[in-house]
């Protein structure tokens, strides 16, 4: 398979804007030319201190039960990790604590094309961390088989663009086993990890976001982390969840997103969104890579560079926007979004997949039903166009901070 050159993407990711909207009322530097990539490396959404990392909302330490005081952070340590290292850390813990756990997929033995399994084969042996032949349907079916026997199968599909040969196994088998056997069988032990979303130069087959294809497959869960802490906690949550989980890892974030990550065993809840910034005037909902485009957009809205000033009415610059990372696409956290939109009266949804039948379609339909009388503007969707991702045109296909800020202005002034 062709492997997008992630190293290069990370290097060329443009230098960051250093403040998130409400922390920044003064100095503005215009975003440098040359990229639409978010300011991942300096994002305020990334937890760069031990204390911030240990106090990540929703964190559940594996060594704490419900009997004692919750969330004791004293004595816990963190280590600086990027996303692929955090994914590796989660798998290492799963392999260490669960003797039935195995990790497999194409090229995983040497560390994987995105380095997520680096050193695992050496540490846990080739019986537990192994290469498979190049067959996605084989990988998915094999994982289902192991999970049917009560084992923990952590499978990797090398790119989410290549998951479609496994679609039958995932949608007709993994998702339906529990129902069709009346609960006598299940494949809760199956987790399928796969890199997703665009990097800026991946073209048709290294840029797709297939999350919505799985959204109608009742019985599956679909999760997309935005950062190293999220990747570790949600992946451990997915591995231990009693249901099969598709775990989509935004590949541009493997190297560019860095946080202090707690080294202990912890999980983050599936099916639960996280509010990253509170606000009262509009809800901005997204997941994965565009979380950082949204952060940049909030900055542009509050403090537009001179070239954009005329397009951002002064009256809107103090608007307070609630930024939510959905995290779980299936099931999605309707309560958090509904509660937010009832307060703000406006919703802008951002995703990289195309508009038609993207996850935003499902969310906006449900929210309009629940919040109809509270809405001050139609739900807006900022998405990729309904096109394959043409290589030379990617900067105009994948939504960037400008398209998001434009949608925010339109929605706020509707």
């Amino acid at each position: 398979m062709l492997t997008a050159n992630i190293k290069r993407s990370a290097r060329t990711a443009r230098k960051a804007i250093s403040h998130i909207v409400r922390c920044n009322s003064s100095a503005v530097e215009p975003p440098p030319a040359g990229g639409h990539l978010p300011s991942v490396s300096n994002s305020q959404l990334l937890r760069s201190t031990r204390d911030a990392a240990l106090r990540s909302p929703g964190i559940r330490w594996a060594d704490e039960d419900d009997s004692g005081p919750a969330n004791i952070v004293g004595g816990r340590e963190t280590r600086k990790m990027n996303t692929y290292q955090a994914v590796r850390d989660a798998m290492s813990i799963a392999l260490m604590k669960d003797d039935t756990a195995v990790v497999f997929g194409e090229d995983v033995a040497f560390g994987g094309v995105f380095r997520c399994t680096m050193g695992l084969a050496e540490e846990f042996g080739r019986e537990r961390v192994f290469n498979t032949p190049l067959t996605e349907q084989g990988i998915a079916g094999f994982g289902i088989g192991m999970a049917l026997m009560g084992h923990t199968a952590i499978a990797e599909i090398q790119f989410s663009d290549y998951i479609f040969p496994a679609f039958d196994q995932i949608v007709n088998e993994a998702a339906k086993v529990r129902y069709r056997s009346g609960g006598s069988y299940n494949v809760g032990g199956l987790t399928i990890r796969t890199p997703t979303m665009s990097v800026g130069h991946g073209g048709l087959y290294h840029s797709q976001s297939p999350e919505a294809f799985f959204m109608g497959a009742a019985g599956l869960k679909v999760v997309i982390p935005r950062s190293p802490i999220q990747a570790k906690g949600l992946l451990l949550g997915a591995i231990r969840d009693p249901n099969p989980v598709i775990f989509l890892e935004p590949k541009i974030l493997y190297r560019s997103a860095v946080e202090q990550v707690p080294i202990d065993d912890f999980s983050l809840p599936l099916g639960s969104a996280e509010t990253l910034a509170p606000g009262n005037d509009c809800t901005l909902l997204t997941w994965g890579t565009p979380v950082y485009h949204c952060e940049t957009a909030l900055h542009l809205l509050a403090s537009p560079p001179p070239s954009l000033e005329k397009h951002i009415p002064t009256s809107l610059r103090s608007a307070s926007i609630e930024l939510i990372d959905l995290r779980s696409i299936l099931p999605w956290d309707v309560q958090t979004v509904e509660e937010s939109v009832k307060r703000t009266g406006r919703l802008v949804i951002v995703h990289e997949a195309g508009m038609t039948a993207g996850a935003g379609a499902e969310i906006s339909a449900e929210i309009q039903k629940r919040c109809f009388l509270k809405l001050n503007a139609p739900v807006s969707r900022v998405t990729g166009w309904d096109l394959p991702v043409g290589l030379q045109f990617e900067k105009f296909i994948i939504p960037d901070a400008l398209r998001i800020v434009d949608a925010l202005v339109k929605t706020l002034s509707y």
Partner: protein
Amino acid sequence: MIRSAPSSIVFRAGQVRRIASAAGKDYGRLPHSNSPIVSKLKFFNAVSGDGNTIPTYRVLDGVGKPLEGAELPEIDRALARKVYEHMQLLPTLDTVLYNVQRQGKISFYVSLHGEEATIIGSAAALELDDEVLGQYRETGVLLWRGYGLDNVMAQCFGNEEDTASKGKQMPVHLSSPKYHFHTISSPLATQIPQAAGVAYALRRIPSRRSRSIAACYFGEGAASEGDFHAGLLMASTIPSPALFIARNNGFAISTPSSEQFYGDGIASRGPGYGIHTIRVDGNDVLAVMSAVKEARKRCLEEGRAVLIEAMTYRVGHHSTSDDSFAYRARAEVEDWKKIDNPITRFRLFLESQGWWDAQAEEELKDRLKADVMKAFKRAESLPKPELKELFTDVYGGEEPWNLKEQRAELQGLLRKYGNEWEPWKAEIGRFRNKARDLID
């Protein structure tokens, strides 16, 4: 898959009677099979009768000398030199484009170092209008057919002259109906069942029936995909003149072929589908030519599929996104280059025939390098296609409303922000006519 057929078909009276009478006459016969009955309990796990590994067909030894008893394909001085020159062109092109990618001028590249004999030998043995369905290491087939370096470069740069993908695909994802080269897809093995369909269609076109075949290339890794098995099964069951050429280069990214399959390579699978099969030394260009020529003949004479497994070695990294020294020793690669270089092997043969010498070699290398550099510089200087191409070729016929509206939305955004939002401003400047086609 459970499919219930209408009962009228399953229980047709005549059919039931036929089976009953057959059973009555030949008691003990197997249903639907002519398999001989034996009383000895014996398993088997080999397709060759003697249980040995499938042999490999070769005509030139490692230093370009014909093997004893080997029959050389029909080849004269002119053809031999043409074959050699194209084999030399590929590494020249690879070296330049590999470095161009490293400089960030193109997004991606895959070289085919080490597989020159398989690609050019097969291209030379095919007819120019045989339909080719490639994977992504078969640029040499197009060059053999006269596609030209400028067109290859234009596609790799995705510039305004890229007719193969109009800037839409990653580098080396070529296509050309004129040269009967079907569009390349990054997902692996998808072309294999398609080749069966292409071949069946050829049978139904009177002017091409008995004259053209579908030649389908893929790697030994791709042969692990379900599509490989589906494709060979379709081509053999619905007789189709498809020639399947497996390039067994030893690696699928990092995974060695020893971890890709346990059986006797790809060739062992052919007979399972009732397909004529040969394993050939893919570094011996004359052996490849002979095998492909004969395979092609069988495809046409019998109207059926043939499988060739070409044994070769991927000298280069998988792609520019890969550093193969993370999983194989540098020395292993260097050794292979010395022990068995398909280009050197053929050059020694040419020299032994008096068809080539050091002076010709020097002239050729200078000429090829100049040609490749000229094409590179030209491609580099050209702008990207018109920006409106972003929305073209999604559908034929009438364009749906959503695309019309989305194009208008982008147009509005570009008019509003195109001169003001730095990242867009810089990008717009790289397109033909500075994207005026879409903005105006």
